[in-house]
């Protein structure tokens, strides 16, 4: 059984994606017998290319992929360089972890409330500084260039890339590298950029690619912050797909294939940039500059990340404020009256989606945890070292659901499921979420599991305990804390999913996320505030349990606190 786990994981991840891609490709070339497409044709493509604003949609998607990634990565690297020693690591982690669990949609709503013409920022500077007596007529949110979209994505991708870098750094012995360079006369920040980054980047390359893929094809954030006329490519595809005229599905499929191409092109462009930067970087390294005037860079490193975190936290405060605001005239920074009416009105409609969200998240996370534990336990028993060739490629496959755009294969997957006669049901949505929960649970748990001192299980075995008992009585209880953290990550990922719920549930399964995003078009800030806040707080429940439960259980066991 255990031996089948890695195979099962790879099949679960790769199978649906391949099937989905094939079933996007066939209709894109006119073949979908269920809708009367019997013969291959280029008609879907012809129809696609005459859509107004298509070029602009593609351009915004492409640009937001590259710009989001470049800015997020630059902020993260500058910050790490400016801290340079791991003294502040714990502090940063504490600041960043809650931001990572914040769903994309909630962050996007928060940012929209903050920067909108009638948002918190405008109120704070009005009327004294700006002279605005009424909200200025500016298109800040949903701007045609996608700048608000990129800003929203950057706020969410910084914590992701930062945590990925922090996880990779211990392997590099960064402190000694920097110490060595400093002893040769390099300023600390220059030293970090010159001797740590070249070794760090290959380790975080896959997460970086995942960010590019995500940013080129995101739907929920684009619905909230992205341009509208025309929207980004992914949003356009979704609109065509949901058109009551079913024949538009052919064009939607062609769009999905085009999206795949746009994402692939963005990845290739990034790769070319990598080569260019590497070449320039080598010259920069070889020139031997020791670093002059580091101060501005250092300030930028700390300031930018602080700005991003503060924006996120103030955004959340703004959401909370809107959800309880009564009468709130424009230039006032605070509402004149406070009311619980919005919450009381929303409560009856909240219960159902909250329960569904929790059910799906718990289901997907439990299945993911079982599969990941089985795979890792199998690895331990086989005595294989994880860094040996074969497993490295399996690990790359884990990133597949994170690098292939959701919108490109989920439609196809729906077609596959429909042709298999599967009705949209809860388990189908859980299965869809599993595709995205599984990689993150694996990435989150594997490090702790592989680092676990093998002598504990050797000792237990030598005391006559069976391998199964060792797993249940030693490994599992001792790894409870990382296990719960991985579970909380899984819950957070599932709670934030928009597209898989919408498509695999055929719009009939309402979660907090689908409901919140569907409110975006309406623009009722009070209601959005309530829903976005609920969406943001659900993942926190998971993290509170992950932090609190071990402390409660092991309150009498000093050795179980901290270090493991």
């Amino acid at each position, binding site marked *: 059984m255990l031996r089948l786990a890695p195979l099962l994981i790879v099949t679960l991840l790769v199978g649906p994606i391949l099937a989905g891609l094939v079933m996007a490709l066939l209709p894109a070339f006119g073949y979908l017998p269920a809708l009367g497409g019997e013969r291959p044709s280029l008609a879907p493509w012809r129809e696609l290319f005459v859509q107004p604003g298509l070029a602009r949609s593609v351009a915004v998607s492409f640009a937001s992929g590259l710009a989001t990634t470049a800015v997020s990565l630059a902020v993260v690297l500058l910050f790490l360089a400016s801290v340079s020693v791991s003294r502040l690591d714990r502090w940063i982690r504490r600041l960043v972890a809650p931001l990572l669990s914040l769903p994309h949609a909630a962050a996007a709503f928060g940012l929209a409330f903050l920067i909108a013409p009638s948002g918190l920022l405008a109120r704070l500077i009005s009327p004294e500084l700006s002279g605005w007596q009424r909200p200025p007529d500016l298109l800040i949110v949903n701007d045609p260039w996608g700048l608000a979209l990129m800003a929203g994505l950057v706020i969410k991708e910084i914590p992701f890339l930062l945590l990925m870098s922090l996880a990779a750094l211990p392997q590099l012995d960064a402190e000694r590298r920097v110490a060595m360079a400093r002893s040769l006369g390099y300023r600390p920040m220059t030293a970090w950029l010159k001797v740590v980054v070249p070794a760090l980047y290959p380790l975080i390359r896959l997460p970086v690619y995942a960010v590019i893929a995500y940013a080129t094809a995101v739907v929920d954030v684009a619905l909230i912050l992205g341009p509208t006329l025309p929207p980004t490519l992914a949003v356009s595809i979704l609109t065509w797909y949901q058109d009551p005229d079913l024949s538009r599905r052919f064009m939607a499929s062609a769009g999905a294939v085009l999206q795949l191409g746009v994402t692939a092109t963005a990845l290739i462009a990034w790769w070319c940039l990598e080569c260019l930067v590497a070449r320039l970087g080598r010259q920069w390294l070889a020139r031997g500059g020791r670093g002059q005037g580091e101060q501005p860079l250092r300030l930028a490193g700390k300031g930018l990340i602080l700005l991003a975190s503060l924006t996120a936290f103030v955004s959340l405060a703004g959401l909370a404020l809107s959800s309880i605001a009564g009468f709130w005239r424009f230039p006032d920074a605070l509402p004149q009256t406070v009311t619980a009416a919005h919450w009381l009105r929303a409560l009856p409609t909240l219960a159902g989606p909250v329960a569904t969200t929790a059910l799906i998240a718990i289901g997907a996370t439990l299945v993911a945890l079982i599969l990941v534990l089985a795979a890792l336990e199998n690895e331990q028993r086989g005595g294989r070292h994880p860094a040996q060739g074969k497993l490295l490629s399996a690990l790359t496959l884990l990133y597949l659901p994170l690098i292939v755009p959701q919108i490109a294969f989920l439609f196809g997957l729906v077609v596959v499921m429909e042709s298999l006669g599967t009705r949209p049901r809860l388990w189908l949505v859980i299965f869809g979420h599993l595709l995205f929960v599984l990689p993150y649970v694996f990435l989150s748990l594997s490090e702790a599991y592989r680092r676990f001192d093998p002598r504990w299980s050797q000792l237990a075995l030598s*005391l006559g305990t069976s391998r199964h008992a060792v797993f249940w009585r030693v490994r599992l209880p*001792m790894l409870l804390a990382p296990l719960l953290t991985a579970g909380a990550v899984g819950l957070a990922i599932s709670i934030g999913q928009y597209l898989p719920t919408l498509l695999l549930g055929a719009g009939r399964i309402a979660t907090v996320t689908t409901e919140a995003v569907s409110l975006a078009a309406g623009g009722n800030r009070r209601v959005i505030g309530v829903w976005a806040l609920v969406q943001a707080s659900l993942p926190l429940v998971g993290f509170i349990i992950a932090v609190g439960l071990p402390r409660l259980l092991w309150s009498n066991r000093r050795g179980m606190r901290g270090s493991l």
Partner: protein
Amino acid sequence: MNTAHHLVLEDIHIALAGSPLLSLDAEIGPGEVLTVMGPSGSGKSTLLAYLAGFLAPAFQASGRVLLDGYDISRLPAERRGIGLLFQDSLLFPHLSVAGNLRFGVPRTVTDKAGRIEAALEQVGLSGFGSRDPATLSGGQKARVALMRLLLSEPCAVLLDEPFSKLDRPLRHDMRRLVFDRLREAGLPSLLVTHDREDAEDAGGRVIELDRSP
């Protein structure tokens, strides 16, 4: 507990990727301690891993390990009846002191609680059963680890530099305690160390391993 056990290491050869690492041929009688000494890299820990059943797949081993006449070299670790004592006490941090001792007691034993209390008393730790192992001193932890090993009723014992992390004044007492108990229980033991005093206190034969060629 005083049944006499016998451990025979018959013509053992261990190789890593084809190149020979160590060879050993030895017999350990009941209550005897055989000390294996050698510099790091001589394959001491590989030998222990092989005997205990944890040899990494990269190594190739040949020979027989006879425990009371039965070849155990193909058995899984948990069925070999070989107990281990490590450098660190490795008391399970999620269990109490008594829980740690109970972990080793075979299922068939009926009066587990009585057995555990008696064991604690023997090493001067009466009433420590409910304590959190993290609150114990180094010497106390080492004594609990020893009693956990003995309660699991092994047929032979492997010692992996078990005294190297103890404070110097404590070391001599601990050695006396360990070797006396092992002798009393009639257990054949194999001690791996690079501390000559360990070997002297053990009082048995000493085999020196060379650095691998």
